[in-house]
């Protein structure tokens, strides 16, 4: 059953990768890479059960946090064209 889940996750990862490749818009790529990160951590959890070492679950949790931070940085970049201080006359840069 875990093998089937791993296979399904591989297929989903492939499809997300294709979407990140083709685009066409920025949001397609952000969503694709975010979904790709989620699939990766699910894959690590499934591999943990597949090799009968469920303690891999801790790593999957850390990956979820990293994925979230990355997505926040990316969306901030797209919205404000900056990661910290305001650029030009955009006042919202500090958010």
């Amino acid at each position, binding site marked *: 059953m875990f093998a089937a889940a791993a296979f399904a996750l591989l297929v989903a990862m492939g499809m997300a990768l294709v979407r990140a490749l083709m685009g066409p818009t920025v949001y397609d790529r952000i969503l694709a890479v975010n979904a790709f990160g989620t699939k990766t951590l699910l*894959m690590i959890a499934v591999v943990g059960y597949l090799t009968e070492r469920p303690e891999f679950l801790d790593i999957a949790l850390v*990956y979820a946090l990293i994925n979230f*931070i990355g997505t926040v940085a990316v969306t901030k970049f797209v919205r404000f064209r900056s990661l910290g201080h305001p650029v030009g006359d955009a006042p919202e840069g500090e958010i």
Partner: protein
Amino acid sequence: MIELLDIAVLSMMVVSAVAVLWLRNLFAVVMLSGAYSLLAATLYVLLDAVDVAFTEAAVGAGIATVLMLGTLTMVPRQEKETRRGSLGGLLVVAATGALLVYGTLDMPEFGDPDAPIHRHVVPRYMQDSPAEVGLPNVVTSVLASYRGYDTLGETTVIFTAAIGVMALLGWGRRRKP
């Protein structure tokens, strides 16, 4: 089953690496290199190198993506068209790759308990580190005590790199009117 997963993850890594080379939209390149890092971290987990996978996920997929986005705020989003197809470069890369593969040929089997790395100093560390260092985790005693100068050097390198990146990104210039 694990071998199949290895092959699938490796082929997805090849696809994303080639795409990073081909695409001219730099934002897409940053996104794809993040995906590449996640795949590399998955591969490390599959190879049982859990701590390396941790580092790869935190540094490769997390910090490196954020740093590259910070760089992207200062450069155009589109890569300039350059002349393609440098045969000499391809030759150099192929030769280097062949050399690296040749270097791995006489390495011991993956997971071989008789490999030199498991017979050289590891038994001594496993036996003597509780008495010599006193930490319950042997990896920590190796990193912090036996290889203390090495770790100090690494930390210095990372510290210098952080200062350089901060200078480039203009930290502390935010209060300028």
